């Protein structure tokens, strides 16, 4: 099962490398959002610096989730049938998609993070903890967005509908990640927030695993 999931993830990343949808569409769109925010605020450098982390996490959530339902992984009926006939279980398929999206999300968030530091000059310590927070956030968002992508697969107006489903379910991740960074910059303990992120992640992972097979049936 793990081999199948990793193989699907590898395939998705290969397709993405060729199509470059994330790099040419989602990343510029996210950067545009980061640039638009200070312009809307005006010339108030301390305020811009203070809201920098919030802008980063919101943009990562709102634009990052688009990665999970990029066109390059949109399942057509025959494609789905082929994967099923190859003996790949729906759970492997779900996790393969989620892993590929998580990898792309981490890359997206890294690029966005560099842009946010340059644009906002936020007062946050760049420690290895930041990497762990980004990893937890990206993985959780990838799982919930893959779940929403599967639930809305093949529907007209899929993108806004999936966003409506993902945003409320991913808000605990946003709160956990943002508060963890806030605690890091204050020098207080971040363990409760990391535990919260991990707990949300486990719930989402269990929900995704259990829903994979019924969703496979519902897509037919």
């Amino acid at each position, binding site marked *: 099962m793990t081999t199948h999931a990793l193989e699907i993830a590898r395939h998705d990343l290969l397709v993405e490398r060729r199509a470059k949808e994330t790099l040419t569409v989602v990343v510029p769109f996210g950067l545009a959002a980061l640039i638009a925010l200070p312009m809307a605020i005006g010339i108030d450098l301390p305020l811009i610096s203070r809201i920098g982390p919030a802008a980063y996490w919101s943009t990562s959530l709102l634009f990052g989730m688009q990665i999970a339902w990029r066109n390059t992984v949109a399942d057509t009926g025959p494609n789905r049938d082929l994967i099923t006939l190859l003996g790949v279980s729906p759970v492997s398929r779900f996790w393969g998609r989620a892993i590929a999206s998580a990898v792309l999300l981490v890359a997206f968030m890294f690029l966005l993070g560099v842009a946010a530091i340059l644009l906002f000059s936020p007062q946050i310590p760049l420690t290895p903890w930041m990497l762990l927070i980004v990893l937890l956030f990206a993985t959780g968002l990838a799982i919930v967005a893959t*779940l929403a992508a599967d*639930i*809305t697969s093949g*529907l*007209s*107006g*899929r993108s806004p*509908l999936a966003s*409506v*489903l993902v*945003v*409320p*379910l991913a*808000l*605990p991740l946003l709160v956990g990640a943002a508060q963890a960074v806030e605690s890091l910059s204050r020098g207080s303990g971040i363990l409760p927030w990391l535990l919260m992120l991990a707990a949300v992640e486990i*719930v989402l992972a269990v*929900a995704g695993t259990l*829903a994979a097979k*019924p*969703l496979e*049936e*519902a897509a037919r």
Partner: protein
Amino acid sequence: MTKVRIVMALAAIVAAYGLYLAIAAPPEAVQRTYARILHIHAPSAWLAFLAFFVTAFGSIMWRVRRKPVWDRLAASSAEIGVLFTGLALVTGMIWGKPVWGVYFDWADARMASTALMFLVYLGYLALRRATPDPQLRAARASILGIVAVVQVPLVYFSVNLVRTLHQTPTIRPGGSPIHPAMLQALMVNLAAFTLIYIALLMGRMVVGRLEEEAASAFEPVAGAAVVPPRLNGAVDV
């Protein structure tokens, strides 16, 4: 529809009595008369929780039995749950402004998590509306209906898990700290809201069945495209 009317009439009688008790109950020691809005707020919130559990139950039953009635139950209950959640949020805000000084306190775990729950179930209704095929709609919505219910206990226990502005549950095992007259008014209003929920649920399920029948009446049947050959000069009879 007669049963619905009977339950609705019963709900109206109990609600009128509940309203009388809510007005007649003594004012709260600190919040004075503002506390009376809680006779609408608390039952709305409880009924929202119940409605979402019924949605999850209907979703589970649909997955087991695959009968449209269970999907109808889940959908109808979710719609009413969203209505009650909205009512709980609005009445909470109306109460919050004079008592807490703000309409919505972001630092309050109960308020934030209730708003989150409201959004999740709006998403559930949006998903249903976006899926035209009834079988597909039931299959996908049932998964979301089961997954989404996980947050309901978290919303309920949020006041115990995180110490925030919102008070901890007033009605708890081993006695309640509120005045007996207020408790009586609260319980009667809870009964009234439960009856309103049952009447709305029954009515919505009837409407849902009629909608399904109307939709299926216009579905093309197998062989509808096949027409008999027409000879020159033939007329329709």
